[in-house]
């Protein structure tokens, strides 16, 4: 459980071997490349053209993958809803989902089939373009059908109505309900066809045409723009036929895409192959080159360095390899190696920063505290058990990505914490279980013996105890942070810094604990289990309080005296001292920030209690209502659990990142990002 030690690697070879070398490093999977500092005679390559080519191929492949996925989803929906013509489509396949784990060689081997796969991608591109044309044509046909449909009741060919030397023939249509027309004072002969839409065919003298058109216009009639040698009905039949052909072609194209779905995985592999090639080009951009040679710098885990060297000498004997320890100026990448408990919690640290290579891995201790605090904020036996079961079983039944699996693992452990704290608080989905007989483990402080429940204390009944527990836990975690800081300084033999910057704030925390001991002991005495009385002698609180007061004054004086020890002027010295005291104020604020444990813990318990009361009042009247009530109760508690988990996840992270890490973490490291992992659709096996 630590940050893995790194070895510095330098590879030198002939330029002609550069591509082969990059392929090798990509396949090796544990080589983190570092830009080479240029010196005389060395330059970087310009791979912009090659990069553009790779990007263009990736875009084509990505389009094909997305298109296949979309077409399959669309057909799946059509079949699911049993839409008209659903039987014309082929069998869809579910694509996408969690990236499949593959060996890196599988990705590289796909190159041999690239022509065939790219031809498929081209075909899909053409299909998509043709489909766009078809969709556009279908829209045109639909609008034409609508337009010609207005004249469906008109029995003559559309071009037969031509003007003669003296007379005009006018064909017009109205879709309005109020399509009555008055030709009383105009010399016109007309015939009407249909009701709505109503087509009118009018014959008049040419000199009356203007008046006729005016009347038609006033009554909302529109002139027929068509002049074809067929009737509107015939035209509609023609359009129907065209529409049918277009639809058939569209289905044909969709079915072709469904057939090409068999290439989906190969398309994805080829995409990832080009992603790795793109990564190699990026690496090559910062690889130093002379006229004939190249230099690649990088890092590999120290325990793999020998094997790596042997592998290089075996596979690339023409290369020179140098393996060395990192110098003081180097900042090697951070690669953490942790056990199954700590690993899932690493994502919390990464929300804040990447741990520095030169510091101790903060994840193990943070994981413990995150685990510990989670239960205080969301402490309920039933809730915890539900989380444990859900997060423990989900990966066994569902296909999940690595990220989601890690997340579930973290919540699995947190669920255990909630379960344990649920027992401590005696909370079972918001209910308390009364103890009927005195068990040997418990020694009741409540002499009357009334209302004694399982667990140490019920936060709803003794909220002050929860507040006390929260603050004491906060002090303990902050103290832990200062111990880590003290150790880090001591390791570097910065003893004065260790004393001033870690020991004194730590002593301040202890003094606060001592001053408050009277209160804390009294608080903890009121629980079912009287820890205060068992562990500490009578009236010890007063003595501790006095000791704490003296300690506090001493610590504050020392902080003021040593705060400005690095200043070069008197003003700077006093300024530094005051700054040190300000830091102590911040530390007090940090302690109080742990009151959120109390806030969240209590709100979750209060909501659960409120839900139980609600269900009890409304539903517990008869058997039927009871059954309904149980269902409602489950839904309400699932809601409360979801809200509690979300709040606890984020607020717990905040306490770790800000209050805890703020005490000792250096951070600003860089992640170990080995070559050969830059894939999107597949996951490379370790």
């Amino acid at each position, binding site marked *: 459980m630590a940050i893995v030690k790194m070895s510095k690697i330098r590879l030198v070879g002939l330029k002609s071997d550069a591509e082969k070398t990059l392929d090798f490093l990509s396949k090796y999977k544990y080589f983190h490349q570092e830009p080479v500092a240029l010196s005389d005679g060395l330059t970087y390559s310009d791979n912009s053209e090659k990069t553009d080519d790779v990007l263009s191929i990736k875009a084509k492949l990505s389009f094909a993958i997305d298109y296949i996925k979309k077409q399959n989803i669309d057909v799946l929906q059509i079949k699911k809803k049993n839409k008209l013509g659903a039987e014309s489509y082929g069998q869809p396949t579910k694509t996408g989902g969690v990236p499949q784990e593959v060996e890196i060689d599988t990705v590289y081997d796909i190159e041999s089939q690239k022509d065939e796969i790219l031809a498929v991608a081209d075909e899909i591109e053409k299909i998509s373009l043709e489909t766009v044309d078809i969709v556009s044509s279908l829209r045109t046909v639909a609008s034409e059908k609508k337009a010609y449909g207005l004249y469906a009741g008109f029995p003559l060919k559309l071009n037969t109505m031509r003007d003669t030397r003296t007379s005009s023939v006018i064909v017009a249509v109205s879709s309005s309900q109020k399509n009555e027309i008055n030709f009383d004072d105009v010399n016109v002969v007309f015939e009407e066809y249909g009701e709505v839409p109503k087509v009118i065919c009018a014959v008049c003298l040419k000199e009356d045409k203007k008046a006729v058109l005016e009347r038609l216009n006033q009554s909302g009639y529109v002139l027929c723009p068509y002049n074809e040698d067929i009737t509107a009905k015939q035209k509609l039949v023609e359009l129907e036929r065209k529409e049918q052909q277009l639809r058939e072609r569209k289905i044909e194209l969709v079915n072709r895409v469904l057939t090409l779905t068999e290439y989906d995985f190969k398309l994805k592999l080829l995409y990832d192959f080009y992603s790795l090639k793109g990564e190699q080009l990026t690496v090559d951009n910062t690889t130093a080159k002379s006229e004939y040679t190249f230099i690649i710098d990088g890092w590999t885990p120290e325990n793999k360095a020998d094997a790596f060297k042997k592998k290089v000498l075996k596979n690339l004997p023409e290369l020179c390899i140098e393996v060395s320890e990192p110098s003081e100026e180097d900042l090697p990448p951070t690669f953490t190696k942790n056990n199954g408990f700590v690993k899932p919690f690493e994502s919390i640290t990464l929300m804040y920063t990447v741990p520095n290579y030169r510091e101790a891995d903060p994840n193990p201790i943070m994981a413990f505290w995150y685990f510990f605090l989670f239960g205080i904020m969301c402490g309920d036996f039933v809730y915890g058990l539900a989380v444990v079961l859900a997060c423990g079983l989900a990966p066994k039944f569902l296909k999940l990505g690595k990220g989601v699996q890690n997340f579930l693992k973290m919540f699995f452990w947190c669920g255990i914490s909630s379960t344990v704290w649920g027992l401590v608080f005696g909370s079972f989905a918001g209910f308390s279980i009364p103890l009927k007989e005195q068990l040997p483990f418990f020694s009741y402080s409540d002499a009357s013996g009334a209302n004694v429940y399982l667990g140490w204390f019920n936060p709803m009944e003794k909220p002050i105890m929860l507040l006390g527990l929260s603050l004491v836990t906060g002090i303990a975690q902050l103290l832990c942070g200062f111990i880590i800081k003290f150790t880090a300084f001591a390791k570097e033999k910065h003893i004065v810094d260790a004393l001033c910057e870690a020991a004194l704030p730590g002593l301040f925390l202890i003094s606060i604990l001592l001053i408050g001991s009277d209160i804390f002991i009294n608080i903890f005495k009121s629980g079912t289990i009287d820890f205060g009385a068992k562990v500490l002698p009578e009236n010890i609180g007063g003595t501790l309080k006095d000791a704490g007061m003296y300690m506090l004054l001493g610590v504050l004086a020392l902080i003021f005296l040593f705060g400005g020890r690095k200043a070069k002027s008197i003003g700077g010295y006093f300024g530094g001292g005051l700054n040190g005291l300000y830091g102590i104020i911040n530390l007090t604020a940090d302690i*109080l920030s742990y*009151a959120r444990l109390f806030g969240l813990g209590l709100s979750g318990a209060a909501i659960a209690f409120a839900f139980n009361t609600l269900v009890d009042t409304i539903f517990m009247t008869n058997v039927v209502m009871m059954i309904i009530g149980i269902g409602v109760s489950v839904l309400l508690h699932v809601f409360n659990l979801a809200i509690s988990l979300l709040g606890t996840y*984020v607020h717990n*992270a905040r306490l770790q990142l800000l209050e805890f890490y703020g005490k000792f973490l250096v951070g*600003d490291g860089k992640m170990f990002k080995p070559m050969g992992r830059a894939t999107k659709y597949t996951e490379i096996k370790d």
Partner: protein
Amino acid sequence: MELGLGHVYGCIGAALAIIVSSIGSCIGVGKAGQMAGGVLSKDPSKFGGLLVLQLLPATQGIYGFIIAFMALMNMGLLGAPVEFSKYQGLATLAVCLPIAIIGFFSAIFQGRVAMAGMELCVKQEGQNGRAILMAALVEIFAIFSLVVSLIAVINI
């Protein structure tokens, strides 16, 4: 025990503590959330860091809740009401105001600093830690008011 004017004043104080500080938190978290949504539309990988930044102004609401809860507990309103004079009620109302008012403003300003921090994270890689720290500094004033309110509420 019947409820008196003291309980009424105390309840007003508790209500103010939770309502006003929570409104501040709503505004702060809401504004930061809007910004986070915009940032995530460009770079979804920054979700973790932005989530913490967005959450920071939520703390004032929790502080308000703590004071309100303590005030109610002091008056015995979580169980059997206790004797609570008019002056005790007025004093409770008065000591609820620090967390209500300071919580309100500090949440809003913390939300603004969080938004600026999000911009920093977009423009500069690996600045999450600094962005979170800057936003957290605003909270110290809310903590001061929490201390004053808490100590006073418990001792009334």
